[in-house]
C-alpha cells in the first residue's frame, strides 16, 4: 500500500514503576483503519496519548509522516478525541459552533483569528457530522451521541490526516453507536483519513477495521481481522494478562 503515516519504534512507557508499554513497534499506512484492542489496563489509551503527543515514552520513537514526533511541526495534522471527552463540565457555556471552531486554534497559530474561511469550514464539518442545525445550541445540553459528534467535528475541522479515537462510543446508546460507525465509514470515504480507534468491543473492531492491533503491554498481533480470529492471539494476549496479575500478587 502507500507510505506509512505513523511509525512506532520500540515504544516503552512506565507509570511509576509499572511497565505499561513494552517495546511496541507498529506501522500504519495512509488510508488504513486500525482498531486497537486489548484487555483493561493493557496500555491502549496510553499508546494513543503518546501518538497524540500528550505523553512522552521512556524509550522508543514516534515518527509521523516520516518526521520525529518531538520536532514535527505537523502536529495539527493529528486529530485526537479522548476517551472521557463527553464527561466535560456540562455547565461550560459553549455552543456547538464555538466548540468546533476551537479545533482550529492550533492550526491557526498564535495571534491569528478565525475568519470567513474558518467559519465556512466549521459549517461544512458540522454538516458532515449531521449537526448543522445545532450550531447555536449549548454543548452541555445535547445528548451523549450528539456531544460525541461535536468533539469528532472539533478534531476533524483542522483537516487531520490521522484521526485518533479512544473508545468513542462509551456512554452512547446503541442507536447512536450504529449511526456513529456509519459516520466513520462516510468520513473515510470522503476524506483521505487514516483512522486509529481504541475499543474494548472486539466484534465492532473486527467488523469495521481493516487491520487490528492486539495489545497487552506488548503487541501480540497486528494484521487483518480474518487472521485475528484464526491465530490464537486472543488467548495469548488476554491469557497473558491473567498470568501477569497472578505474578504480581505474590
Amino acid at each position, binding site marked *: 500500500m502507500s507510505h506509512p503515516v505513523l511509525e512506532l519504534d520500540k515504544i516503552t512507557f512506565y507509570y511509576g514503576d509499572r511497565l505499561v508499554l513494552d517495546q511496541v513497534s507498529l506501522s500504519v499506512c495512509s488510508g488504513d483503519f486500525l482498531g486497537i484492542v486489548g484487555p483493561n489496563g493493557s496500555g491502549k489509551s496510553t499508546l494513543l496519548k503518546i501518538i497524540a*503527543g500528550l505523553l512522552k515514552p521512556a524509550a522508543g520513537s514516534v515518527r509521523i509522516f516520516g518526521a520525529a514526533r518531538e520536532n514535527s511541526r505537523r502536529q495539527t495534522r493529528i*486529530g485526537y478525541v479522548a476517551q472521557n471527552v463527553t464527561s466535560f463540565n456540562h455547565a*461550560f*457555556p459553549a455552543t456547538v459552533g464555538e466548540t468546533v*471552531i*476551537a479545533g482550529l*486554534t*492550533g*492550526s491557526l497559530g*498564535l495571534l491569528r483569528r478565525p475568519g470567513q474561511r474558518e467559519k465556512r469550514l466549521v459549517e461544512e464539518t458540522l454538516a458532515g457530522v449531521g449537526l448543522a442545525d445545532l450550531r447555536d445550541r449549548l454543548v452541555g445540553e445535547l445528548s451523549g451521541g450528539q456531544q460525541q459528534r461535536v468533539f469528532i467535528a472539533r478534531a476533524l475541522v483542522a483537516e487531520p490526516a490521522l484521526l485518533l479515537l479512544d473508545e468513542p462510543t462509551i456512554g452512547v446508546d446503541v442507536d447512536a453507536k450504529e449511526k456513529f460507525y456509519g459516520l466513520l465509514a462516510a468520513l473515510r470515504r470522503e476524506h483521505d483519513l487514516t483512522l486509529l480507534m481504541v475499543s474494548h468491543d472486539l466484534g465492532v473492531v473486527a467488523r469495521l477495521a481493516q487491520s487490528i492491533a492486539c495489545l497487552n503491554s506488548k503487541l501480540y498481533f497486528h494484521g487483518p481481522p480474518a487472521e485475528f480470529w484464526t491465530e490464537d492471539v486472543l488467548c495469548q494476549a488476554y491469557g497473558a494478562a491473567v498470568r501477569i496479575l497472578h505474578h504480581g500478587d505474590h
Partner: protein
Amino acid sequence: MTGLFDFWQYAFMQRAYLAGLVVAVLCPTIGIYLVLRRLSLIGEMFAHVSLAGVALGIFAGVYPLATALGISLGAAAALESLRRTYRVFTDLAIAIIISAGLSLAVVLIGLSRAFNIDLHAYLFGSVIAISARDLWLVAAVGLLVLGFALLFRKELFFIAFDEEAARSSGVAVDLVNLLFMAATALTISVSMRVVGILLVSSLITVPVAAALQVGRSFRSTALLAYVFAVLSVLCGLFVSYHANLAPGGSIVLTAVALFVLAAGYRKIFSRGGRLFAKGHLS
C-alpha cells in the same frame, strides 16, 4: 437630582471611578477562565500573597502596590512550577502558597507595627486612597492584561474547555498558562486598591457566576459578566459615597444582588424556556 452626582467634582472620586471601571473590565476578563477551569481559589491565593506584598512595601517604605505586583508574579511562577510537579494536587499547591503569603503578611505587619490607615485601605478598599500614581498603574496593567486576553482569546477558551485537546492539537498550553497566571497576578494586585484584598476575589468570581446563570454561549456569558461587573462597580461606588460605606463591600454586595437576580431569572426562564423550546421544535 443634581446633588446626587455632586461627587464628580472631586478629583478623588473621578480617580476612584476610572480605576473602578478598569478593574470592572479586568476582573471578569480573567475571572471567566478561572471560574470555568474551577480555579476560583487562585483569586483568593493572589489576594493573600498581595497582602504580604503590601505589608512588605509598608515595612520597607516602598510603594506597596509595586511590591504586591512583584510578589504576586513570583507566586504565579511558583504555582505553575508546583502545578507541573504535582499535577494531581493543584489545590494543595494553592493552599501552600496561600499559607505562605498569609503567614508572611502577618509577620511583616507585626514587625512594622503597621496596622494603620494605610493597611486598612488595602484590606477593605478605599475611594479616597487612590492616588494619581495608583491610577496610572491600574491603567497600564489594564492595557497589558486586556491586550493579552484579546490576543490569546481562542487559546484561553480552548484550554479552559479542554486542556488535553488543546495540547494535542498543537496549542502552546504551557506558555499560555504561564502568561495567564501572570495576568491573573497583575489583575488581582491592582484590583485590590479599589475593592480591597479581602474582597478582590469576589469581583473575579461573582459577576462571572451571575453571567453563567443566563449566558447562552461563551460570547454572551463573557459580555454579561462585563455588564454585571461594571454595574456592580458603578452602583457600589455610588452607594458607598452617599451612604459612607466601604466601597469594596458595596461593590461586592451589588454583585451578589445581581447574582441573586440572575439566578432567579434563570429559574423562571428555564421553566418557560423549556415549554417554549418544546413548542418550537414540534
